[in-house]
C-alpha cells in the first residue's frame, strides 16, 4: 500500500442531470406580460408607498405587503454604473460596454440595464436615459424586450433626486 497503483484507476462517471420547471409566479408573470405592451410595472408598499420594480410581494425593507400594481416610466436616471472590459457569458456584446443601475421615474429601487448609443466614457451618474424597446410584434414578454437604455439628452438629474435609490 506504500506505492500508488500502477494501473490507471477507472473513475466513476457521475454526470449530474437535474431538470427544473419553474413557476414564474403571478407577480413576475404580470411584469413580463406588461413588457410586451411596452409597459413597466412595479408593486407599491402598503406601508411606505415605495414602488418596487420588478414587483415584489412584500417590501424587503418594511415587511409590509406590496399589493397594488403601478406603472412606472420607461425612462429614468443612471445611479451607479461600471465599464465592462471582459466578455460576458451568453451575450454577444461589444466590449467595453456599460452596465448600469437605472432608477426609473416613479420607482424606489433601480434595475440593472445596459447603456448604449453613447461612448462608455460619457456615461455618468445622474445621466437621464430611456428604454429602447424591441419593435412591435417582436416583443415576447421577457427581459430582452428592453434591448438597452440610451441617453435622452435631458439635463442631468440632481444628485439629491437619486442618492437614496443607489
Amino acid at each position, binding site marked *: 500500500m506504500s506505492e500508488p497503483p500502477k494501473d490507471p484507476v477507472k473513475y*466513476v462517471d457521475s454526470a449530474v*442531470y*437535474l*431538470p*427544473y420547471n419553474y*413557476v414564474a*409566479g403571478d407577480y413576475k408573470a404580470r411584469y413580463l406580460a406588461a413588457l410586451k405592451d411596452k409597459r413597466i410595472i412595479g408593486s407599491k408598499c402598503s406601508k411606505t408607498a415605495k414602488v418596487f420594480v420588478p414587483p415584489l410581494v412584500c417590501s*424587503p425593507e418594511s*415587511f409590509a*405587503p406590496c399589493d397594488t400594481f403601478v406603472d412606472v416610466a420607461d425612462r429614468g436616471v443612471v445611479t451607479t454604473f461600471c465599464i465592462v472590459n471582459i466578455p460576458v457569458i451568453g451575450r454577444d456584446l461589444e466590449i467595453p460596454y456599460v452596465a448600469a443601475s437605472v432608477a426609473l421615474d416613479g420607482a424606489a429601487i433601480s434595475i440593472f440595464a445596459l447603456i448604449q448609443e453613447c461612448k462608455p466614457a460619457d456615461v455618468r451618474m445622474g445621466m437621464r436615459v430611456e428604454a429602447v424597446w424591441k419593435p412591435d410584434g417582436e416583443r415576447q414578454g421577457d427581459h430582452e424586450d428592453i434591448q438597452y437604455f440610451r441617453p435622452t439628452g435631458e439635463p442631468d438629474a440632481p444628485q439629491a433626486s437619486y442618492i437614496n435609490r443607489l
Partner: protein
Amino acid sequence: MTALRNIAIVGFAQLPIVARDEHRMATEMLYPAIRRALADCGVERDDIDYQIAGSTDYMDGRPFGFVAALDVMGSWPARQDLHLEMDAAFCAYYAWVRMQAGECDTALVAAHGKLSEGEPNRVLNLQLDPYYHAAIGLDAASTAALQASAYMARTGTTDRRLAEIAARNRTAGARNSDAQVRAPASADELQHTPWLVEPLRSGYVPPVGETATCLILAAEGKAEKFCDRPVWIHGVDHRTEMQTLGARDLSRSASTQLAAQKAFAMADLARAGDVDVVELSAATPAEELILCDALGLDTHADRPVINPSGGPLCGNPIMMTGGIRLGETFRQLAGRAVGREVHGAARGIAHATQGHCLQHNIVWVVGSERRWS
C-alpha cells in the same frame, strides 16, 4: 437535570400542502406563512430577535437560492440570521440552542421549497455516496423499501400490517385541512395498490408536495404574551448515523432510540407511552413501525394518538415535514387542531428525520406546563 430556560412554541402557520402551486414562487409562498404566524402571536416582525430558515438549494435549483427568502422574512433592519440545509425541526433546535445561550428571547423558524419545480428523486439520489449507492440509481423510494424489507424480515411484519398503518394515517389526514392527500382509504384498498418498490406499494408512500411553514419560539416572560397556551419544550436531542447504508442495521433506528432516551431524560418523561400525542416524520408505514420500536411505543394502543394530522403519508414537503410535526404537536396542545383534536392532550412528542433510511433523527418532548420552575 440542570434547569434550563423554559422556551415555548407560541405560533405556527403553514399553507395547505399542494402538489404544485402554479401562482407563487417558494418565497412568495413563505411570505403569507410568516405573516400568519406573527399575526397568530399578535406581534410584529420587530418583536422577533432571531430568524432561521431551512431549505435545500438542490430542490430550488439555484446555488445560494436560500438568500432569496431573506426578502420575505423581514430582514431589515439588519438581523441575526441563519440558514440550514436541514428540515425546519432542526432549525428550531438551533434557535432553541441560541435561546438557551441567552442570546435571544424570540425566534422565527421558516422553511420553504418548491419540490414540484425539480425532481426530488434525482436530488435524493445525489444525497447518497456517489460511488456505490448513487451510481446504481438508488432513490428515496428504493432505500425506504430496503429498510421496510429489513424490518419486515426481522419482525415478521406483514403487508397487511403496513396497509393498516397507512389506512390509519389516511383516515386521519381526511380531517386535516392542511393535508395534501385528503381522501380516506381503507387497508383493503391500500393493500391492492400496485407495488412501487416492493415491499412498498404506491398507497404506502406520499406524493411530492410543497408548502411553506413558520414556527415562532419564545422564552418564558415573552411566551405568555405571544400565546394564551404556549407549548413548552421539555426535552430535545438529535443523533445521526453513518452514511454507508450497509454499515447500519436498517431494521432499527439506533439514532432515534438514543435521541429519545436523551430527550426523555431532559423532559423527565419515563416512557413515550405517557404522552398523549405523537407526530412522527414517517414517510412509509414501515418507518412508522421502526420509529415506534425505537421510541418504545405500542402501535396497537389507543394512546398516545400517533399522527392525528395524517402524518407525512398525507403530505411530505421535504425540509418542512419535520417542522410540521412540531407545529402539529403545538396545535394539539394549544387547542388549535380544529377537526382533529386529541382531547385532553397535555404532552406530546414530535419527531423529524433527514437522510436516507432515517439517518438523522431529532426527538422533541413538549408539554402544556413549564418544564422548569
